[in-house]
């Protein structure tokens, strides 16, 4: 029997939290009580985009929207509306949902878990028109700071907000400003670190391209707080669009006298210049960055003295990341307490992540700290494509580590990620599925750090190279169990003895995969098998019993190594197979495997 009346109950996160489930149970109970079960049916739907009025209940075919429904209201809706066709006016939504406004459902799903602070204007204002930024309260914070606050109050506000450096380390921004302000010198500098170099990370680029003025405004605020009147943005030359838009933005700000001499008649001068970097990863390290601006070779030096004491050209300097700066104006507009209330206790605010790899919705997202990895990957990112299984997520780029399924429910903040053997990094997040070989992934990142090592200190220059040699050997099938031990020893040694952050974190991808995916390493060195089928010398393809005999694999095999009749299980001739993987891609039921027999069942811990 088809029910005539459908009762839709919003099951979006907010309504769900507001007990949408309990309302459904109550509806079902009431319908049964009034013997209406055959006439009406309840459905839990996706978010209807009216979260602040939730829980939402819609009764079809009348299309009546009820807002803020409580379980005790259910009986009235059932008796009045469902039974007697008299909608309950008391509960009706005040402004009916405009269908046009919620046309883009998936857009809502994508954005519903996000909170945009650093990206607040990205994608909605014209970055080359200062008026649009001003129309969105731009430069109000700077105006307030310069006319109503003392530098000490500014620093205190930033400290109270709990803002931590978004470049990766997570050092409290307010403290950093305080150190720089306490250094006595008549010349100080503010530097914006826009040398974003992690593979797969592009949030700073998005901010600079979409909302360059927010960074300029924040740098001026910082300059006022620490007593600097000169700022530099160190940006890599590989970001031509961002460079161009920053140039336009700086010129416009100068035209409007929001940069330059005597801003807002406060007697405060501030100027910003661009410095282009050649895109060396190590120049993201602040002392190397400063050396590069000075015209030296980009190499880090020992700390202390910290840049806050002795930085650019020997003067006190404050270096902050793009995303950190992008948060600053909002803190002054909405207050430190507002900002502090978002996120977790020790990591306030939001974090922008660049989601990439084996994920449905590649893209940029900003979530409050404390959101779990599962929410980011599966709810916002849409999960893994092609019915593959989630294996691991790599955070923090070449300095970070891999996080596995068992830690998916960890709330993301600076300290939790470090405890998991990874780090926040600048926010790159690469998702990997069962087709990724973890040894190969570790090798990829190490290859990157070997190339980018500046060569100043021996552990990083020589040590990472030796680690890479060993990993190459393992992927070629010539590794031994002893190699794993050496990798670990070498990795820890490099961590302890390197000069700067690059070397201190370079072994992380290897160490964390060794910890979480040791059985894959063992398969490589003992069984001489690459279970994911990436390392071609260690791969044997075979067809499992799931084969439906569609012949697609045989048709796609370039060397004719696959035989079999239609609707029967096919077979791969290993002597002909060139291990190209074309059959695996072609298989519609994921029945071609590179895993050795019994791989999944066997739990190995060595």
């Amino acid at each position, binding site marked *: 029997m088809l029910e005539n009346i459908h009762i839709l109950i919003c099951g979006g996160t907010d309504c769900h939290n507001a007990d949408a489930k309990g309302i459904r149970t109550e509806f079902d109970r009431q319908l049964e009580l009034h013997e209406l079960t055959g006439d009406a049916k309840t459905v839990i739907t996706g978010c209807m985009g009216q979260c602040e009025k939730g829980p939402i209940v819609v009764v079809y075919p009348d299309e009546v929207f009820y807002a803020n429904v409580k379980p005790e209201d259910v009986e009235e809706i059932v008796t009045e509306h469902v039974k007697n066709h008299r909608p309950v006016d008391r509960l009706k939504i005040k402004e009916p949902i405009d269908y046009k406004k919620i046309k883009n459902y998936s857009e809502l799903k994508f954005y519903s878990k996000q909170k945009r602070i650093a990206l607040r204007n990205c994608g909605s204002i014209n970055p080359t028109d200062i008026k649009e930024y001003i129309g969105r309260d731009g430069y109000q914070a700077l105006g307030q700071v310069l006319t109503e606050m003392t530098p000490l109050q500014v620093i205190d506000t930033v400290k109270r907000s709990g803002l931590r450096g978004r470049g990766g380390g997570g050092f409290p921004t307010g403290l950093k400003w305080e150190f720089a302000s306490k250094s006595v010198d008549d010349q100080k500098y503010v530097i914006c670190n826009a040398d974003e170099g992690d593979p797969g990370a592009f949030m700073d680029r998005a901010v600079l391209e979409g909302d360059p003025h927010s960074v300029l405004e924040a740098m001026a605020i910082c300059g006022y707080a620490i007593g600097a009147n000169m700022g530099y943005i160190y940006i890599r030359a590989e*970001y031509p669009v961002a460079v161009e838009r920053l140039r336009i933005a700086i010129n416009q700000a100068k035209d409007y006298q929001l940069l330059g001499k005597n801003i807002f008649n406060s007697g405060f001068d501030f100027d910003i210049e661009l410095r282009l970097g050649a895109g060396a990863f190590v120049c993201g390290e602040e002392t190397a960055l400063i050396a590069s601006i000075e015209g030296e070779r980009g190499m880090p030096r020992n700390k202390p003295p910290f840049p806050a004491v002795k930085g650019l050209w020997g003067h006190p300097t404050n270096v902050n990341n793009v995303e950190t700066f992008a948060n600053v104006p909002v803190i002054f507009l909405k207050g430190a307490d507002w900002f502090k209330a978002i996120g977790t206790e020790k990591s306030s605010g939001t974090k922008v992540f660049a989601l990439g790899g084996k994920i449905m919705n590649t893209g940029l997202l900003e979530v409050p700290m404390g959101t779990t990895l599962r929410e980011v990957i599966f709810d916002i990112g849409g999960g893994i494509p092609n019915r593959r299984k989630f294996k691991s997520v790599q955070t923090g780029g070449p300095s970070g580590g891999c996080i596995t399924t068992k830690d998916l429910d960890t709330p993301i903040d600076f300290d939790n990620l470090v405890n998991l053997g990874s780090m926040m990094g600048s926010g790159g997040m690469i998702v990997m599925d069962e087709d990724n070989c973890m040894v190969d992934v570790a090798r990829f990142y190490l290859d990157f750090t070997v190339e980018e090592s500046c060569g100043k200190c021996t552990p990083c220059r020589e040590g990472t190279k030796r680690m890479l040699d060993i990993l190459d050997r393992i992927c070629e099938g010539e590794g031994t169990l002893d190699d794993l031990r050496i990798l670990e020893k070498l990795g820890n040694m490099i961590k302890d003895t390197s000069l700067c952050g690059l070397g201190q974190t370079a072994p992380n991808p290897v160490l964390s995969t060794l910890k979480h995916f040791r059985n894959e390493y063992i398969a490589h060195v003992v069984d001489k098998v690459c279970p994911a089928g990436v390392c071609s010398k260690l791969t044997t393809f075979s067809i499992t019993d799931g084969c439906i005999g569609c012949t697609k694999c045989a048709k796609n095999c370039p060397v004719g190594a696959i035989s079999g009749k239609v609707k029967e299980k096919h077979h791969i001739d290993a002597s002909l197979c060139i291990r190209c993987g074309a059959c695996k891609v072609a298989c519609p039921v994921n029945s071609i495997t590179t895993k050795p027999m019994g791989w999944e069942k066997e739990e190995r811990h060595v």
Partner: protein
Amino acid sequence: MKSLEDLRKLRDEAKRNMNMRYVKGGVRIQVGMGTCGIAAGAGKAYNKFLEEIQENDLKNIFITQVGCMGECAFEPIVEIIEENGTHSIYCQVTERMVEEIVEEHLMGGRPIERYLLSAIKR
């Protein structure tokens, strides 16, 4: 500009201008032109819009470039904001689609459902 007062005035004026574009002035077209969008061909779509608007002599249409919206997998992205506040987000926009969008949506007032982000993204 030398005072906070001046800035507030400018802000209110800018806000009015922006709102007029959103609400009374007609249609605002935003083309996502971060590096990701440009690489995916947003420049072509942007130029095509200009061309089509001129060719059809459409009035009260404001087209602008904006930064990355975050939906990089679905670039180029074009958001059309209409008088009544309706947002339609078109994704993976090609030049051929621009012609259709201008004809159907801007001139005919019927958004093309199958090109919307909601239809393509699951």
